[in-house]
């Protein structure tokens, strides 16, 4: 049926299937960016509703015609180009909304949630360790950066790293119970930790108790991030643009590393541990080693996202890191497709932006997304964009 589509369109018929998929992929990237701009600009709730319906209808329609297969192939065959296209899409959004504080903030939050989602992807997607205290590790990073910026002269870029390291270290406290409890019981350890952390923040006065803490700003090479960008030619950009660009840079690096991790013997070992611990042990895989490595790496990424998140918000409180937020993070991973970093992009965008644009559902967002995840688990357990087969060398074609 996919072949029929080629023959029916005379111009495309002459293109090789690979080029056709590239064309489809770039077209999809372009359309998605255009749609995102339109959607983010829209203010009338009816227009937003219409756009949502349009997006769903077009996606379903294209999927019916087999078009999504081409987009998928574009991502596997022309990965570098497609990654570049996605980054350009975000940059285009940043350029269009350069003066709009709120929209930039929203996009930056999506990027940071994706960064945290990458951490969860290593833990949950590759190793099968469900971390239901994602928001707590985000909080460890956030509070670390707040305290360090307020009381020390550590350079902010280093603070990001320390935020990640702190989060990884706190994770090490949990590693023993997580390793010892079998299978999904370890999820309960993380739930207990999420609640523990929340009540700790609520009652600890040095960390500001329920009111929280003000945080310092990010600065790079003497450039304070909380200042808007003004150039001589009249260009003006909101200070959130700084944060958005830094978040994007971090995300790109982390994304590339997580992808490489998946496409390596390490990724293979983690998958084997997730799928069958007993068999894995009989083939020499050290279950504990991989779980420690993956859990720690994941928490590092989450903590780093949290540190930047705190600097960007300028103010953090326990309510930002509740158990509900941990569930939201896990929902992003589940909705997107467990183990597929691209799924995170789609899911994080839905989960973060939708409630902000549709104020009427803001109040109902926990209910809505929890309900959505219930439906996904029942009817599409692999998520919106299921993870594909491992492709060790991008674009490597038949070579596994």
């Amino acid at each position, binding site marked *: 049926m996919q072949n029929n589509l080629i023959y029916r369109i005379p111009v495309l018929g002459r293109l090789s299937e690979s080029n056709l998929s590239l064309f489809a992929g770039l077209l999809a990237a372009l359309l998605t960016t255009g749609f995102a701009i339109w959607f983010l600009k829209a203010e009338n709730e009816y227009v937003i509703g219409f756009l949502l319906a349009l997006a769903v209808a077009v996606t379903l329609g294209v999927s019916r015609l087999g078009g999504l297969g081409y987009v998928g192939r574009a991502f596997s065959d022309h990965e570098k180009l497609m990654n570049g296209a996605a980054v350009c899409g975000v940059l285009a959004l940043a350029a269009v909304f350069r003066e709009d504080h709120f929209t930039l903030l929203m996009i930056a939050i999506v990027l940071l949630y994706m960064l945290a989602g990458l951490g969860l992807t290593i833990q949950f997607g590759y190793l*099968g360790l*469900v971390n*239901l205290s994602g928001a707590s590790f985000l909080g460890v990073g956030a509070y670390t950066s707040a305290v360090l910026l307020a009381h020390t002269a550590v350079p902010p870029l280093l603070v990001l790293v320390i935020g990640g390291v702190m989060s990884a270290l706190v994770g090490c406290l*949990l590693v*023993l*119970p997580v390793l*010892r*409890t*079998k*299978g*999904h*019981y370890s*999820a*309960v*350890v993380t*739930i*207990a*930790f999420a*609640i*523990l952390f929340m*009540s*700790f923040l609520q*009652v600890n006065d040095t960390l500001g108790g329920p009111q929280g803490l003000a945080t310092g700003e990010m600065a790079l090479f003497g450039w304070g991030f909380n200042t808007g960008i003004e150039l001589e030619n009249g260009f003006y950009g909101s200070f959130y643009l700084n944060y958005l660009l830094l978040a994007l840079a971090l995300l790109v690096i982390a994304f590339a590393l997580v992808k490489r991790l998946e496409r390596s013997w390490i990724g293979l070992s983690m998958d084997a541990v997730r799928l069958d611990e*007993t068999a894995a042990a009989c083939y020499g895989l050290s279950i504990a080693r991989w779980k420690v490595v993956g859990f720690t790496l994941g928490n590092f990424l989450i903590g780093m996202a949290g540190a930047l998140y705190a600097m960007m918000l300028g103010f953090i409180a326990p309510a930002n890191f509740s*158990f*509900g937020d941990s*569930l939201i993070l*896990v*929902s992003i991973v*589940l909705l997107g497709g467990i183990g597929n970093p691209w799924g995170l992009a789609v899911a994080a965008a839905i989960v973060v932006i939708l409630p902000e644009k549709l104020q009427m559902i803001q*109040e*109902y967002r*926990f*209910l809505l997304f*929890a*309900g959505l*995840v*219930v439906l996904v*688990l*029942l009817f599409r*357990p692999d998520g919106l964009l299921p993870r594909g087969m491992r492709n060790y060398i991008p674009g490597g074609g038949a070579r596994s």
Partner: protein
Amino acid sequence: MDIGLLGQYVINGLMLGMMYALVAVGFTLFFGVLNVIQFSHGDVLMVGSFVGYTAILALAAIGIDNPIIELLGALLASVGVVALLGALIARYLVLPLRSSPPLNTLLITLMLGTVLRESVRLFFPDGSNPKRFPALLPDEAFTFGSFTLRVDSLMLLIAGLLLIVALHLVINRTRLGLAIRAVAQDEETAMTMGINFRLVVLVTFAIGSGVAAFAGVMNGLYYNEINFGNGLLLGVIGFAAAIIGGLGSIYGAILGGFLFAALQTIGSVALPFASAYKDVFAFAVVIVLMAWRPTGLIAERTSERV
């Protein structure tokens, strides 16, 4: 410390323990028949206390103000509605996921818990604020020196004990209990013996959830207040108690519940740094216990076939 205060702590601890035990029993029953963790159990309990509350308001609205009738009405409505809810959860969320990884069941019920919690918060009139649960039990108290024993606490403890005994009798003395135990032992054999597996699962979920509803009403009567967020904490603690007791053993779960309450009470008494940290302490204990005895104090039979 003076005896009166000590006695107060003991009663308080017993009361907590009773509630934890009743929640833990549910976790253990579900785990027994299906090997799953039904994580919305705590929120199911919370729904139970709201149903009971609504029933009391409804009875009051039609002019009935006899506390005994109100109490019975609240219990009947709560246990009935929530037992049905439990069976529905089993039928539509848990059983369909039997062939998926057990993790999915945990996640789906976790999300369902959020759905229940948020639904109460958003759709129950003024649901986001704590509700004052009417005091239906007599408010007299016995005084022994400096120690006061409230009659309502005593009644609640006895009621909880009776429920546990009733549950024991159902599990050990009835055909239904036999079927439940058979399914828990070995589902395939039980099915070849002509036991209707699905029915047993549904009934088990109904019983476990009904017990939780009872605990929910108890919770309301004891604290005179109910809150949409109560269930999550009780759920996590109840689950921890079930694990401490070795998932799958009813008596272990009960023991685990009381043990946990004891630890919590001792923690809040003995720890110098104020009771503000009592939840932090309690959950730290959960984590430490799970690290120490991952399969519980009464070890679960491992039966993985290699």
